[in-house]
């Protein structure tokens, strides 16, 4: 083949491939418009005001298609599938307690997306903002509203890399003092001080004393439940095979996801509740694998997200292992129950 012909073949092929590439991009951008249209049969959503101090409401990220997609919305906790009120604040992950909210957002830059955490007051006004080093995963506020925590996935830099690490940060919302990563805390594992390069923390949950928190620590392929002390800056392992702990309002039990042998690698978790006094585990009645940091609706009921048609749906199950899992709201994620 002459050089001329080779160039012609290349040009023709590039033109054909460019058409395919352009078509795929146009197809994907048309999707944006579809998602801004309200779906028939979806929940009724109206714009309105939200305060984080109204007891008996559930605040969450609305995932239903339409103009209020991804905004914070509220429903009465007694009617979680009822009409929604949207507040105009977009969050990927959210949590609130005692009039303080934490909202993890994506910031669309020109070259890449970055992420940040906003601390919100009761009227959803931003009081502080922090950089989040990766894709937001979990968010929590202490029962007092004095501390907020978030976890992000930080990607590796490898060729077709598939390893990730997590970064868990805690901030004092009164002083603004940030602990960028729990890795700076002293780790006591099985009674000894522990150092390792492969330590990861995620899924912080706070007790009401403004000092104690619980989280997952992962190292050497195992996960541990740790009890943390914000004043002593230590974490101590107290149980194994615990991920995404969530402390009950009365502070006696922890709901968590446990990696169960024999389940498929894609869906390895089952929901459990750990009694912190007896250290006994109770298997919950949700038969499917759950990948969420559950929340407590009250001292007896647990709410969590499962994959759904519009991203995620919310389900509830009793905390004592009885009963059945029940879908309480569609196209919703990151719920917080205001008390």
């Amino acid at each position, binding site marked *: 083949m002459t050089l001329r012909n080779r160039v012609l073949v290349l040009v023709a092929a590039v033109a054909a491939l460019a058409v395919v590439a352009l078509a795929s991009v146009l197809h994907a951008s048309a999707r944006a418009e579809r998602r801004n249209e309200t779906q028939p049969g979806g929940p009724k959503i109206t714009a309105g005001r939200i305060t984080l101090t109204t007891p008996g409401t559930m605040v969450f990220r609305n995932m239903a298609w339409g103009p209020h997609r991804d905004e914070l919305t509220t429903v009465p906790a007694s009617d979680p599938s009822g009409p929604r009120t949207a507040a105009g604040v977009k969050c990927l992950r959210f949590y609130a307690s005692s009039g303080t909210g934490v909202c993890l957002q994506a910031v669309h830059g020109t070259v890449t997306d970055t992420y940040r955490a906003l601390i919100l007051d009761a009227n959803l006004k931003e009081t502080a903002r922090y950089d989040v*080093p990766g894709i937001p995963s979990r968010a929590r506020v202490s029962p007092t509203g004095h501390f907020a925590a978030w976890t992000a996935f930080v990607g590796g830099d490898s060729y077709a890399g598939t390893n990730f690490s*997590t970064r868990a940060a805690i901030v004092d919302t009164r002083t603004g003092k940030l602990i960028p990563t729990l890795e700076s805390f002293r780790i006591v594992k099985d009674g000894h001080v522990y150092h390792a390069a492969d330590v990861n923390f995620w899924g912080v949950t706070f007790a009401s004393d403004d000092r104690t928190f619980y989280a997952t620590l992962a190292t050497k392929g195992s996960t541990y439940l740790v009890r943390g002390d914000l004043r002593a800056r230590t974490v101590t392992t107290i149980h194994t095979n615990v991920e995404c702990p969530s402390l009950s309002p009365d502070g006696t039990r922890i709901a968590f996801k446990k990696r169960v042998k024999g389940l498929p690698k894609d869906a390895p978790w089952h929901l459990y509740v750990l009694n912190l006094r007896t250290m006994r585990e109770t298997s919950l009645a949700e038969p499917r694998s759950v990948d969420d940091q559950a929340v407590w609706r009250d001292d007896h009921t647990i709410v969590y997200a499962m994959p759904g048609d519009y991203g995620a749906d919310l389900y509830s199950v009793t905390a004592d292992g009885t009963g059945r899992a029940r879908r309480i709201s569609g196209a919703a994620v990151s719920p917080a129950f205001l008390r």
Partner: protein
Amino acid sequence: MYVADSRANADPSAAGTTGTTGITGTLGTTGTTARVSAAIAPTVFALGAVSLITDVSSEMVTAVLPLYLVTGLGLSPLGFGLLDGIYNGFSALVRLAGGHLADRGGGRHKWVAGIGYAVSAACKPLLLLAHTLTPIGLVLAADRTGKGLRTAPRDALISLSSTPENRGRAFGVHRAMDTAGALLGPLVAFLILRATVDGYDAVFTVSFCVAVVGVLVLVLFVPGSSSTAAPRTEKAARERVVGEKAVREGAVGEQAVRPTLRAAFALLARRDLRRITVCALLLGLATVSDSFVYLLLQRRLGVPDRWFALLPLGTAAAFLLLAVPLGRLADRVGRWRVFLAGHGTLLTAYALLLTSWHGTALPYAVLLLHGGFYAATDGVLMAAASDSVPEQLRSSGLALVQTGQAAARFVCSLGFGAAWTLWGDRTALMASAVALAVCAVFALTLHPGRTVLEPVS
């Protein structure tokens, strides 16, 4: 936290990527220089273009993969890298096999490399179909198999289409173009994500189209056999310098060597190649993987979180800028010297990380040194090894050296992780620095290939 140990797993050439500046710059030189032998062969530019295009394609996917897994598919990515360790060994075997297959049948480099590029291209649309961890893991493994398969034949083609006098520069040009692709890829991917909503399917489709262009450029513009490929083959160049000093004991034999598997391993009986391999291995054992370097940068120098993801770009940019100049330098003052100096650069970077001085310029200096280390060692090592392997076994020989180095770096990252656990980051880095210094001194005394690695002219 623990970041994937990446480049230790990937082959050395994966380390960085990039360089249109190289093209124009060097072409300009070609036009003006009187010494024909100094010109970079069109094949090298063609291969550089293939690598550039392919890296745009693969880095597009790499850049969005974490987002896709977490927000697109809702998977929990932790522990996803478990396969990496197992795959590492397999990848080494694939690379050796690729090298051997390319040598058989009198230089099928182009076709073995082509299959490698085609396999990786075919993986991109498969990502559209895979929605759970296991299929995605398999697709990524196939992608890396393609990469393992093509690396050694491609480097062999570069070395076969350059002369001993300009080989360092040829590899430099290729690595610079490669790195340019790796820098462009993420940019393209994020532009697509910006123009769409959850446009991961568009990213994968575009990535596939780009990869196909890469394969086409290879098929259309890289000559099939080395003799037709480069008008000035190595043999011709050697004939010119025979009678001077180049061809001596241990230098590449001109007699026909049949490219059997046995002959491939018998290469290690050659003193020069054995010494190069041993040195690459020893130095590899003291080369802390990139992810640890970035982690140390962040911990010891307090680089803010939001810059963390950009640190590899710093290394890549330095690699891009320095690959051609350092390749030229290697041609002029000797490849081995530049290779060792590159490790001296890495040692300096370690030293900076160990100091308690916290200047704002320090992270930049470390990244510059780190990129300089790759520029002075990655292509240069291939150029150096090429001098000690006969043409008929070029691919196998380069695969041996690459595999040895990659394996050593993997062992080092395991060891470094363990040392960090036992003693903390500072002591672990100190130990690596000492080990690197000892290995470098040892490599200096071995001085492999004094005969062929010194400048030829």
